[in-house]
């Protein structure tokens, strides 16, 4: 039952927010805190009877049921979702948002969808939540976004929707190969997939992979992403980059690799090559960005490339590292956006040329920026390092004949990552203040809380990563 609560709470609170008008912002924050409590409970008792899977009859005619289950991976992602939403809602509390009831309501609806995606153990239910998570985000971007929001959101929508349809058709095809009872359940889909002849596995592999690759996004299917990150309100960008992209990775781990193992092995080198080319490609492009949000966006593509490569490297170590990194990347990129959001609000620009001097105007923000930047480039004793070290080691140990080349090229990302991240720090925090804004406000209480929570995770998990390492492997 507890798993249903994870979905139900944000859903109900979201609906309440729609009606709450001006109080929406507080209702939403409260609701997200309750969700955080529940997801922490799920993570703490994952693997015990307290977090039992649940299965209710839904539409037996088409073999689908309302089934939820939480293993370590799902519990970890739910916990991440639980942590990120209150942080998001702590931001911009003083900013005037048009029609706040709808804004906060939609945010919580997408949280319900996200929780559902991570918990669903039925293919159709998975698809349902997948869309439930995305559709509120489309609205949020197109209504509250930047100047080019309509055009950008349209592309984002069409692109990801095409992906969703490919995924749906693949899942339906798979369910038709089962014996018809509970055709959509994860176990049956897996058995059906494994039994398929090679030719069909190949076709389904690409249908599913393309859908997930667009979501992650993997080079060269990524061009919707920098635009969307730039144009979306930063709070929504956080949800997109910390959680939505994890849907793609999660789907690869849950609905692709175990379902089509032979095709996965067959295409592993291809996918790893794409992902690793993407790391270098995105890092190089990040180097020449003049817009802070685009820089972080490309940096995120590079990180996702590394994670996707690790997913297909087929070693235990990289798989384990990947799960850890999914959590840590979620924390770090959120922290990065929180800072970007603060800087943008204060300097009134996303352009590097008009920034600078943050270390003298707002030292607190600058210190946080420096720590988070170093977590972003995986400095040891920050959480970023643990996952990345395991990912690299895993890729290096993979059975692929190109494993050394993969590792070496992906390693270039370490160097380039330092180049663009430190350039960003230099342009934002050091030098003189070029913004023309003289009075730069300190962090507000809410902002400070968000930053401290995130920093606690960054340092805490950097020094004692073992609890997280243990959590993600629970069955």
């Amino acid at each position, binding site marked *: 039952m507890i798993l249903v609560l994870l979905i139900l709470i944000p859903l109900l609170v979201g609906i309440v927010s729609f009606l709450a008008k001006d109080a929406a912002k507080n209702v939403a924050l409260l609701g997200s805190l309750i969700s955080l409590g529940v997801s922490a409970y799920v993570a703490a008792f994952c693997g015990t009877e307290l977090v039992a899977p649940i299965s209710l009859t839904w539409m037996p005619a088409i073999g689908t049921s309302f089934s939820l289950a939480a293993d370590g991976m799902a519990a970890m992602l739910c916990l991440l979702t639980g942590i990120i939403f209150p942080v998001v809602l702590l931001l911009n509390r003083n900013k005037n948002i048009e029609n706040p009831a709808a804004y906060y309501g939609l945010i919580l609806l997408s949280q319900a969808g996200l929780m559902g995606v991570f918990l669903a153990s039925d293919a159709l239910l998975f698809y349902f939540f997948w869309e439930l998570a995305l559709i509120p985000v489309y609205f949020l971007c197109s209504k509250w976004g930047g100047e080019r929001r309509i055009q950008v959101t349209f*592309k984002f929508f*069409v*692109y990801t929707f095409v992906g969703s349809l490919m995924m749906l058709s693949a899942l339906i095809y798979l369910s038709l190969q089962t014996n018809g009872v509970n055709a959509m359940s994860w176990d049956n889909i897996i058995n059906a997939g494994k039994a398929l002849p090679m*030719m069909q596995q190949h076709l389904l592999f690409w249908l599913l992979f393309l859908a997930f690759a667009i979501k992650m996004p993997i080079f*060269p299917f*990524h*061009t*919707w992403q920098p635009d969307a990150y730039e144009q979306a309100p930063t709070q929504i960008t956080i949800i997109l980059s910390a959680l939505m992209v994890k849907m793609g990775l999660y789907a690869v781990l849950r609905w692709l690799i175990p379902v089509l193992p032979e095709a996965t092995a067959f295409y592993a080198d291809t996918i790893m090559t794409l992902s690793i080319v993407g790391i270098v*490609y995105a890092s*190089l*492009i990040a*180097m*020449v*960005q003049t817009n802070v949000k685009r820089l972080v966006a490309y940096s995120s593509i590079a990180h996702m490339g590394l994670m996707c490569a690790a997913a297909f490297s087929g070693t*235990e*170590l990289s798989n*384990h*590292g990947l799960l850890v990194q999914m959590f840590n990347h979620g924390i770090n990129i959120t922290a990065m956006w929180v800072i970007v959001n603060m800087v943008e609000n204060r300097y009134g620009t996303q352009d590097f040329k008009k920034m600078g*001097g943050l*270390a*003298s105007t707002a030292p607190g923000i600058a210190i946080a920026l*420096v720590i988070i930047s*170093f977590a972003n480039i995986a*400095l*040891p*004793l920050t959480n970023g390092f*643990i996952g990345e*070290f*395991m990912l*690299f*080691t895993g890729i*290096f*140990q993979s059975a692929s004949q190109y494993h050394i080349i993969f*590792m*070496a090229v992906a*390693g*270039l990302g*370490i*160097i380039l990552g*330092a*180049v663009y991240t*430190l*350039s960003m720090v*230099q342009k934002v*925090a*050091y*030098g*003189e203040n070029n913004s023309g804004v003289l009075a730069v406000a300190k962090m507000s209480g809410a902002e400070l809380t968000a930053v401290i929570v995130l920093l606690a995770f960054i340092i805490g998990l950097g020094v*004692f*990563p*073992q609890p997280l*390492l243990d959590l993600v492997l629970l069955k």
Partner: protein
Amino acid sequence: MIGFLINGLGWKSMPKQAAGFLASLMMLVSFGLSLAIFFEVKAGAADTIIPLFDFIHSGKLLIPFAFKIDALSSLFLLIITGVGFLIHVYSTSYMHDDEGVVKYFAYLNLFVFSMLLLVMGSNYLIMFIGWEGVGLCSYLLIGFWFKNRDYTNAAKKAFVMNRIGDLGFLVGMMLVLYNFSTLNYNELFAQINTNQTILSGGTYTWIAVCFFIGAMGKSAQLPLYTWLPDAMAGPTPVSALIHAATMVTAGIYMIARSSVIYNQSEFALHFIAIVGLLTAILAATIAIKQYDIKKVLAYSTVSQLGFMFLAIGCGAYTTAVFHVMTHAFFKALLFLGSGSVIHAMGGEQDIRSMGGLGKKMRITQITFLIGCVAIAGIPPFAGFFSKDEILAAAFAHNPVLYAAALGAALMTAFYMFRLYFLTFSGKFRGTHEQEHHLHESPAAMTFPLIVLAILATVSGFVGLPEVFGEHHALNEFLHTAVTNFGAHHMEHSTELMLMGISVGLVSIMIGVAYVRTKTPNFQPNTGLAKVLENKWYVDELYDGVIVSPLVKFSGFLDRIIERKGIDGGVNGVGKLVRWGADRMRLLQNGQVGAYLFTMVIGIVLIFIVGLFCVNF
């Protein structure tokens, strides 16, 4: 005990007034602890592993967070905390007026903490944590005066260049993990020592070279040395502590620690010897023509590090460690001395505007002179013994190496005394205002100078060569932790002769330096001298060959490939669909016949495809 050491140093936020005092006190306490540890080890205490907790445990991979105390680490502990303490004391005065003084001491303490992690870790991953940690502190301290764009550029450059090396270190670690499934020194070295046959020499060479690439970055060797001279942008005590005495010697520590691996690969050793020698010569030539007092010392540091790597390449790890120790003393002394000079000159660093400072600042002058004598290699000062040992090792290895190294050593003597004479003797060449301002530095700054001068004088005696009838105390102390490769004994007469040659030539060079600087003449340089003044144009070369093309390429990717190519393609698909939809609309023309016709064709097509698939 160690826990306290760590926690104490991790202390980060302090009230402004007390910051320096508290930080120094912490350093003193840890120095005391290091002394205790050192004597325990010296008294014959066995190597100890102190486990704290499991850092990463995943499947077969188990990396504990643990420390290893043995002869090598205890010696480094002593150097780090000892020199560290003196520099903290010095900083309390030097940084007194700076508004960021609390931040400064916090960074400095964080640095010492990371450095201790580096040398105390019981596996490569902990070493790597410290390794990156010191890199971080170095970055923060180089860019300490963050409003100056050049300084922050220097900081960025230092970090990025180190990252290149770090990648080598990382790959080395992965090779070790791949082949041995452990990163713990004890288990790893035991495996190598017992089953030497399971791995080909090639693998050892790869591991050794990868680790050495890491060392190239951190210890500023060719081709990754250019960050170190730029790093002089940081406050001078930082240059002394991080960019001369401790951090840059991390590479030496790493290789000495891994001596078991390096002994398996003669190729890697040769490679190191050559890189070290080339660096020593190149940096020495540049130092001859520099006018910035700190730049001279910086290139001198690069050159001395080259000497240390030369020693390692000759298999004489303990000699390299010996030189690390003596170098830590005299180079810290020289840097602090230069800091004292800069302090007196009100921030001026150009030696062309100095001269005759000796009259006004006697203590600085004398201690600086001791530093110069020590680095030049005049007996009985410390540098003589350690440098001579390196030269002897090189001679035993190959006389050509010896000759080249001797050349570099002579240049060292020349540029150091050029620096000394230009700064302290002759007439003052600066402005009147500066001359009026000249004064000896306060006691908090001269006290460390005096202590370091004493150390620079006497520390050579721990490594008295056998020629003088003593046994080599340092070698004996270290031999439990470090195994020299192909140790060789030279005839005493040969050794004495070599010493004689080097001392004689060095004295001549000092004379030359004196004569050349007696009537200073700073005409614009031409020809080779100009090339040297411009550091062989290496920075320009890197910029032209690597940095600019990369930036241009990235711009090309961003503007053309990304926007026009990939995104254009995506948009193109969208347009195509719309175009297609426009055409399709024409099909829905309402004529039943046309529909039927299309349907029939469709069915036929499905049959054909179906047949094809079944047969397939």
